């Protein structure tokens, strides 16, 4: 058996005239946390549905755990765990009843696979007689994970598990995922949050149904090649406007309390790097500082910045 857990080969899917997924290929290795990172409408959910055998692709093939998603869908469905994007449990059943139900549906018992969910379930235990609908966002998410895990799947599909969940629960959730990876479960997770990319082993950046890049998070940020600065002042609106006119080809966007300024430098992904313009070679934190102060900005601060996944994503969107 191959060490690949998921193989997607040139998958395409259209809804009417809308091409949701275009020629997408990627592999996920066994025991890996693989992230599909992209905004709403990027095609994440469609890919998930194809890989969980819920949708037939228009073109391309895919296999999960060695099983074809179209031919072997019945067998496949026994081996995967799926947590859809919306909270998809029975709100009028209690925590325990939900878990019991899914265990029965998969022909197993809670006791049999308790070891796998113990860490998560202990937190739910005090509320086991509470109806799922009355749980907090974080608790709902934990219950959904338990239900998806109760039959000890070999591949876990988590579609936007972090949406609508507070930061504390979000962090705990990712810690749980890392423990699950250690028990040899392959995890495919999707998220619109760029900051969650760093928590994955490898990620695919998805936009408008196409994969823009696949790499480790470090690999992706390392491939960013434009000179990048972070600047702040008391007036963000003027700061951004002024920085955009600093020199030709400069892009500037708000990044939290800073604005990121990307200069026209080496194109990030071309095989033969273009020569940095003389203009940007001269540009430094000092020159930007002076420029901004000359424009009347107060409390100016300019730093050399390292690219984040978001910088890379924006850059790739420009390509």
């Amino acid at each position, binding site marked *: 058996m191959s060490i690949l857990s998921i193989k997607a080969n040139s998958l395409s899917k259209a809804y009417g005239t809308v091409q949701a997924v275009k020629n997408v290929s990627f592999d996920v290795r066994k025991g890996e946390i693989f992230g599909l990172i992209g905004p709403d409408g990027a095609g994440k959910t469609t890919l998930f549905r194809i890989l969980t055998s819920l949708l037939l692709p228009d073109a391309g093939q895919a296999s999960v755990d060695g099983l074809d998603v179209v031919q072997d869908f019945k067998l496949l469905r026994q081996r995967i765990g799926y947590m859809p994007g919306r909270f*998809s449990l029975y*709100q009028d059943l209690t925590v325990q009843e939900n878990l019991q139900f899914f265990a029965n549906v998969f022909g197993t018992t809670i006791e049999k696979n308790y070891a796998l969910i113990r860490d998560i379930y202990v937190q739910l235990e005090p509320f086991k007689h509470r109806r799922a609908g009355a749980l907090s966002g974080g608790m709902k998410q934990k219950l959904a994970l338990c239900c998806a895990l109760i039959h000890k799947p070999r591949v876990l599909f988590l579609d936007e598990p972090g949406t609508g969940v507070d930061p504390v629960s979000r962090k705990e959730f990712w810690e749980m995922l890392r423990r699950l990876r250690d028990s040899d479960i392959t995890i495919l997770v999707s998220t619109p949050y760029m900051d969650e990319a760093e928590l994955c082993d490898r990620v695919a950046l998805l936009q408008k149904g196409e994969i823009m890049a696949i790499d480790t998070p470090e690999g992706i940020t390392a491939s960013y090649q434009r000179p990048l600065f972070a600047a702040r002042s008391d007036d963000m609106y003027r700061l951004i406007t002024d920085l955009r006119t600093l020199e030709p080809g400069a892009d500037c966007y708000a990044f939290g309390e800073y604005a990121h300024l990307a200069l026209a430098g080496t194109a990030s992904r071309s095989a033969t790097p273009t020569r940095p313009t003389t203009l940007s070679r001269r540009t430094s934190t000092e020159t930007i500082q002076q420029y901004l102060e000359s424009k009347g900005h107060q409390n100016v601060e300019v730093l050399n910045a390292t690219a984040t996944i978001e910088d890379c994503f924006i850059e790739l969107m420009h390509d």
Partner: protein
Amino acid sequence: MNRFFAFVLKEFRHIYRDPRTMLILFGMPVVQVLLFGFVLTNEVKDANIAILDPSKDVASIRLTNKLVSSGYFRVAANLQSPEQLEPAFRKGSIKLALIFPSDFGHTLDHEGTAKIQLIGDASDPNTATTLINYANAIILNFQQEYAQSSLGVQQAQTPLILAETRMRYNPEEKAVFNFVPGVMTLILMLVSAMMTSITLAREKELGTMEILLVSPLKPLQIVLGKTAPYLALSFLNAALVVLIGMMVFGMPMRGSFLLLGFECFLYMFVALSLGILISTRAQTQMAALFVSALSLMMPTIVLSGFLFPRESMPVFLQAVGTAFPATWFIPIIKGVMIKGVGLSYLWKETLVLVGMAVVFIGVSVRNFKSRLE
């Protein structure tokens, strides 16, 4: 635990935890039966009646006066001949006609018995039945008075007035006997079809359908698991409605309970498969509700003969009506409960329902997808 029973258990939990579902399941049938029973048949005052009295003797005039003085009736027309009856009814000016024979008083005095005819307006069967019941009670009362009065002393026994009641248009139509089967038909359709279509659509709406599809549950298990609880509850409902019909409104039960149970089961099966059929198309609970209300409730109420006699419908609507299971089920219940007939008389209707069940379930199983659209 078995997959299927786990599913059924879950379904029962959904039902009894949702007050609205419980209300629809058990509140609605009771309220509907009582509503149709009382509201539609109650409070008749000063109803216009026509009298045809060729005898014009003391007895007939006294009876007429007694009817009028009760406050329920008002003589709107004194007819001279039976031919005037038809136009009077057609104009809608009278609700009931009382017809004396030409020798009413004479026969009553000398033979101790006399016949009269009460003719009700079957286009409004509920009112007609009520009026006839009132009239009968007054006639009964009159008999006793008449016996004690000087005119009747020579009789050893109480004279007997035989009131023969007749409905114009369709003589079998009786209000109580009409609405109980009608409500039963409606309720079973509602509970079986509407609730199953909604409950399946709810799984789609909540996104839980995705999880169910991705599980080893077979489509048939999902469909049967969804419908089994409603089948059981519908049965309870049917029993409840029959019971109210019999206890509160004096509905007869002349046929076999076993046959009634079997026919109910068959009809529910048809309704359930219709519900599944709707849900294979409807994506949301609202859509399911809308489609079932429009395509099932309305025809069941309007076209099946529940509220309006089918005989008085245009031929086209009668034909449309035959497409709906209710149209076939109402004659079955009436046959079993009122006429007490067996399967040998009802095989045609039963066969139609069986055919419908086969078609609907076949189409819906074919439509049910193990994948999303």
